[in-house]
């Protein structure tokens, strides 16, 4: 298992900076998600790690071996990486078995590795098929099997679930995570979908405009984002105004606890909650709000409520929920995040 260290990495295309001073340490055997909107540089970073492009400045090392710096560039074929791009891109002229065996040495092809990895991918019965005879999900699993077969030091996954439809996507996402864990590979997953990142990764690195703005566990990224930007990229946030008071904040929803990271002495702040922290009840202790709109979504309803002239969008159970015009009382569970107003 290999750890990966990236130091002060920069890269620009045609004078346009794409990556600006990236620092990232990936512990051996962990799965890291690079999460960010399109154009934030996450794929460029992945391609630099793979050696498909050259960096301008900085350094990438696998364990203590420098694989890329302005002076030296180890070509992709000598980095011991596995690469799974957006649309699996299996070699169309080779069968599934031959695709998986492609990266193995001649003696490796004779051994059990191909059968073993095909079994892990759940493709044992499909070894003789050609890529066009596979479904999208099978193609993606085969592409991952091909990348894993030579037991690479680092696996690079570039939005590998993008081409799949939503239901299949979640399923394959779980399969892939399981395969990576079984193999104990160090993996980097590029994605713009926070749910995918949370489901697969041990660590999430959030990228924005060529920089990594936060690296943390999925839990911490979601509940304690480093900025309003991260909050928006990782799920739906609710922002309300507040004022610090003795380590808590005073808001229109009452006095709320703040995660310790954010405590400041005093002053105005922008408070972030997740919709699922706020419940509507008839218990009269909570702040009073009026329901403006109710939108049925099957397994939940979206409620638009008016709280002291601010509208909030809340999620509520679809079993019993108020109708427009009702007065409700809002309760907050858990602590909130706070940013300078």
């Amino acid at each position, binding site marked *: 298992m290999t750890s990966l260290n990236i130091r002060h990495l920069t890269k620009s*295309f*045609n004078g*346009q900076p*794409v990556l600006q001073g990236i620092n990232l340490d990936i512990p051996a055997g962990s799965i890291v998600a690079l999460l960010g909107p*399109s*154009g934030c*540089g996450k*794929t*460029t970073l992945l*391609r630099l790690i*793979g*050696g*498909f*492009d*050259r960096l301008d400045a900085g350094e990438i090392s696998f364990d203590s071996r420098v694989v890329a710096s302005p002076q030296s560039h180890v*070509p*992709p*074929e*000598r*980095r*011991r*990486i*596995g*690469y799974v*791009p957006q649309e699996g*891109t299996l*070699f*169309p*002229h080779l069968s599934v078995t031959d695709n998986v065996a*492609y*990266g193995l040495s001649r003696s490796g092809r004779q051994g059990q590795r191909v059968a073993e990895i095909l079994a892990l991918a759940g493709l044992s019965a499909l070894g003789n098929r050609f890529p066009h005879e596979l479904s999208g999900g099978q193609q993606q699993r085969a592409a991952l099997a*091909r*990348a894993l077969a*030579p037991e*690479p030091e680092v696996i*690079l996954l570039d939005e590998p679930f993008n081409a799949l439809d939503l239901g299949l996507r979640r399923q394959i996402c779980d399969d892939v995570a399981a395969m990576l864990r079984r193999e104990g590979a160090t993996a980097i997953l590029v994605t713009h979908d926070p749910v995918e990142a949370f489901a697969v990764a041990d660590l999430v690195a959030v990228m924005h405009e060529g920089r990594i703005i936060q690296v943390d566990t999925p839990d911490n990224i979601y509940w304690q984002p480093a900025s309003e930007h991260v909050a928006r990229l990782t799920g739906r946030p609710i922002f309300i105004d507040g004022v610090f008071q003795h380590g808590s904040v005073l808001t229109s929803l009452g006095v709320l606890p703040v995660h310790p990271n954010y405590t400041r002495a005093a002053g105005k702040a922008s408070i972030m909650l997740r919709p699922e922290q706020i419940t509507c009840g008839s218990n009269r202790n909570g702040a009073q709000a009026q329901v403006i709109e109710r939108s049925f979504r099957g397994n939940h309803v979206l409620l638009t409520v008016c709280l002291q002239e601010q509208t909030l969008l809340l999620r509520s159970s679809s079993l019993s929920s108020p109708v427009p015009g009702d007065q409700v009382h809002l309760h907050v569970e858990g602590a909130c995040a706070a940013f300078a107003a």
Partner: protein
Amino acid sequence: MSLLTLTGTRPLNRALPPWWLIATALVPIALIALPLVYVVTRAAEAGWDGIRDEIFRAYTYSLLTNTLVLAISVTLAASIIGVAVAWCVERTDLPGRQIWRVVASLPLAVPAFVSSFAWSSMGSQFQNMAGAILVLTLASYPLVYLPVAAALRGMDTGFEDVSRSLGRGPWHTFFFTILPQARPALGGGALLVLSHMLAEFGALSLLRVQTFTTAIFASYELRFDNVSAALQAGILLILALFAAYTEMRMRAGTRHSRVGRGAARQPSLATLGRATPAVMFGQIVLSLLALGVPLTALAYWLFIGNSAGHGLSEVWPAIWGSSTLSIAGALVTTLLALPLVLLATRFNGRLARFADRLPYIIHGLPGLVIALALVFFSIHYVPAVYQTVLLLIVAYAVLALPLAQTALRASIALVPPRLEEISRSLGRGPFKAFLSVTLPNIAPGIGAALALLALELMRELTATLMLAPTDVVTLATEVWSHTNDAEYAAAAPFAALLILVSAVPVYVFTRRTLEAYEIT
């Protein structure tokens, strides 16, 4: 943020192309520069006075008039016929539309000089400017019909419905809603006709019309290093490059958009009603003229010739010449085109962009001018290759390069650069990656390109006439020389074989045009 990241396109390989790729790509580029160098150096030798004397001669003026009258008349007539046929076939309830759709594109299978053979064999009344305009219009209207038909077929009829709902009649709707959408297809087709007309030699020579090409050929036959020929070639080159440049600009600007998703509805067909017999009559007359006349004349002369006892023994040398020359030409062309295509599809930068645009420049080089330049340079600098097959193969390679680029591009586009990257990530170096992944996947495409090129090169007349060693004959040169000597029956078997050979390239061209212009 760069445009690349905005559109979500993954960056192409930004590394510099390897030196060997650049070196091999420079070979065809140098060959293409030869005609330009030829015209410029010859003009420089003639000096300003020489150029002025040549350009302001009454003879040059008459050549220019003839060339332009012919090219513009044929382009206009072919455009009108092409659009009309396309609309009738695609958008009206004309009976037998499925059959007309195919029949309308068939004249492409008859090379222009072969139909000229047929028309001139019926008498000298067609051997003049009006005859040439008629024959060439009939031969080239499919070049407009095909792209326009494809555009009409794929067009979202929503625009028409909206136009009609806003109170515009069918004619207004056609000219202001349908035609503007088909404009890239119409413009591309019309400019292709224009380029062909500027470069046409065989048909015009058989129909006895004096334009730049026939005049250049005549001066060349008098003396190979004729300065007049070079200067006339220069003027022709300017006209042809202008047409090619316009075509390139037009294609680059092609953009269709359909807002919203979902399949376009099947267009509702216009009812011809009482006009049906007239339209039907028009279609029949057009097909009779474009197909019936050449094929009937051909059949007649075949019959006469057969009874006169012309046998296989005379056809065989031409078949042998045509096949060997065209297969060798196809091989060389493919080898030259491959680095250009790799450069254009796998790399960015000035050279790659230039490689991508090369086909348009070559479209602007009449075969006659290429051949003239090759004759001149070979005699002056490498006399050993003059009157050898090698020189002709070089000319073929330049002429067929655009077709080879298109054919190869399509198959290389099927191999995404990502495949090569995966191969690299699995431990193969760049060359092994090319051998184990790229080559197996483009091999069928290369095979198809070779076949297509060979069949297309069999139709080549001009360069073959000028460059083939004196003892080598091909199907095309046999048709030309027998027709020139009014030996129509002797020409017939060669002409018939040429039409058979044309079927495959024409089929491929038809498919490709339909796909390229179908608006989706």
